[in-house]
């Protein structure tokens, strides 16, 4: 199995090969044996050359965070052979852009109308949770194409609210 993993500015190719009950890992041109055990859902115990790492994964609104010890990393994982992940990585380029809810909340105001022109950084929707309001801004200059969440509805984290083209 080969994965392309981006952490920060750096993208690494991680190749995993079964080696008896363990794994052989190739990364950045080096190979080493990995002793991996699943401790709980989203928690792995890794032994690499004697070093013990308890690593945790957390996925919130489609974004993956990996916790190693007390360091935390945002990670993007692509399976180079997977059509779906290719498509997704294309979607994050230019072209139409979706504005999604960063957390669950209530849509208290929609500041734009379909067909309206918006600037990058212009406020588009206000959502509220725990008595705090958050203005979501357009990521690009464009035209409002779709409005998915009318005022007053409850939305989940990651739910698309507005599409800008």
């Amino acid at each position, binding site marked *: 199995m080969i994965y392309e993993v981006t952490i920060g500015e750096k993208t690494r190719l991680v190749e995993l090969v079964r080696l008896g009950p363990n794994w052989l890992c190739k990364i950045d041109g080096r190979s080493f044996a990995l002793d991996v055990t699943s401790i709980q859902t*989203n928690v*792995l115990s890794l032994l690499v050359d004697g070093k013990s790492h308890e690593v945790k994964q957390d996925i919130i609104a489609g974004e993956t965070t990996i916790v190693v010890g007390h360091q935390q990393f945002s990670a993007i994982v692509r399976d180079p052979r997977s059509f779906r992940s290719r498509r997704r990585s294309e979607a994050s380029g230019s072209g139409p852009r979706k504005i999604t809810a960063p957390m669950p909340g209530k849509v208290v105001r929609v500041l734009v109308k379909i067909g309206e022109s918006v600037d990058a950084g212009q406020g588009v929707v206000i959502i509220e949770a725990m008595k705090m309001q958050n203005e979501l801004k357009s990521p690009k200059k464009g035209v409002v194409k779709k409005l998915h969440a009318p005022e007053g509805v409850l939305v989940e984290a990651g739910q698309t609210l507005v599409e800008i083209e």
Partner: protein
Amino acid sequence: MIKKILIANRGEIAVRVIRACREMGIASAAVFSAVDRAALHVSQADEAYSIGAATAAESYLNIARILEVAKRCGADAIHPGYGFLSENAKFARACAEAGIKFIGPPPSAMELMGSKTRARQAMQSAGVPFVPGSARGLSLAEAPSVAAQIGFPVMVKAAAGGGGKGMRLVRTPEELKAAFETAQSEAQRAFNDGEVYIEKLIEDPRHIEIQILGDEHGNLVYLGERECSVQRRHQKVIEEAPSVAVDDDLRSRMGQVAVQVAKAAGYANAGTVEFLVDKASNFYFLEMNTRLQVEHPVTELVAGLDLVHLQIRIASGEKLPFRQEDIILRGHAMECRIYAEDPDNNFFPSPGKITQLLRASGPGIREDSGVYEGWRVPLEYDPLLSKLIVYASDRASAIARMRRALDEYFVGGIKTNLLLIRRIFEHPDFVAGRINTGFLDRLLASRPEPKADENGLAEIAAISAALFAANSATSNGRNSQSGSGEKPGSSPWKQVARVEGLRNE
């Protein structure tokens, strides 16, 4: 002794009070709003009653409804926790009229302390130290002599003020006139009241508070101080006891003033007297909180007492079981508040489902939590999830222990402030005890230290991300919990480190 307590609250403090009830053999009755049926306090209490819609005004602030439930279920007392109705004198009076004991101070003391001006008058006549100032509106003509008498730097403040509006810092006599006039016109615009007064500027103060406890027979003690300077917009994040800035002498002087404050207010039960402390160890009365505080556990740990047990005993009419000289403070305790909020996104609240909850435990760790794995944190209330509290024999050990506990603690599915707490516990000023009320804002304004990628942890993270992806691809969506317990062969991860063993031999 009280027989049944209705807890007019939710979250960790409701669970805290329910635990005390259980330990004392007292029946506990929880109340819950429409979105809190699955909350921890509901399943932990002996009884639980629905009190209305999600909006606090219709449930946890609904005095009529709460008293109706209390009467129906036969509760002889109500514990208000903190927040919600805890400092509402009207509620306390309504309880008394309904023949139900309000576990807290007399309504008269709550009313006195709820009014800034009345409190100041009463406390000043009792000789309690205040930040030096004019204490009343001034004319521009009076200002220079008052300011000179107080000594620069001073603050010009709107009498009707709040939120920083109509407030000006003045460092020299020359700046006074312009600042005074700006403040006046700003106050006029903001509050429709141009009255301003002058107060001494306390530079980089610490926020230190004294826990007091009084019975209904006139006995009052203080249980030492709590240092609460690590705060953001007056929201405390980390508290500790004792304070590095307080020695035995200052403690006893502040304690005595706090007892004086309580006496002047006709106070009983648990309360907290808040002070600003300047660099020269002068302390100034700020306000009195007429309730149990969020941060009461740090006092419990250093004093070896249970404040909620004591609150209930006091409300039952018992005398304090100790005198001032019996109080022995020992060791060091620290608390951090774990909030469902995103420090990277302007501290926006982050409700939602807690998909995973790994808790710290072992020596010196206490967790007062209101949540559990699988619970969906509702949108409607304060984002406090739980309080992680440590005890150790000294401050350095307590800091090390909290770091260890933070390593163990993990909340999945929602954003929390855990990483920010970690940053604070690693900050050299915090570690050295050089903290004041501006500390956290300065830390937030500074960029986080770009961590050296110690031990190639980013590489480990990259490998782990790939392993998780491979795991979910292999297990193909089935619940892979408990790989550890799987028989050899049934899990993609193997139990035994054969390869590792071979490599090293």
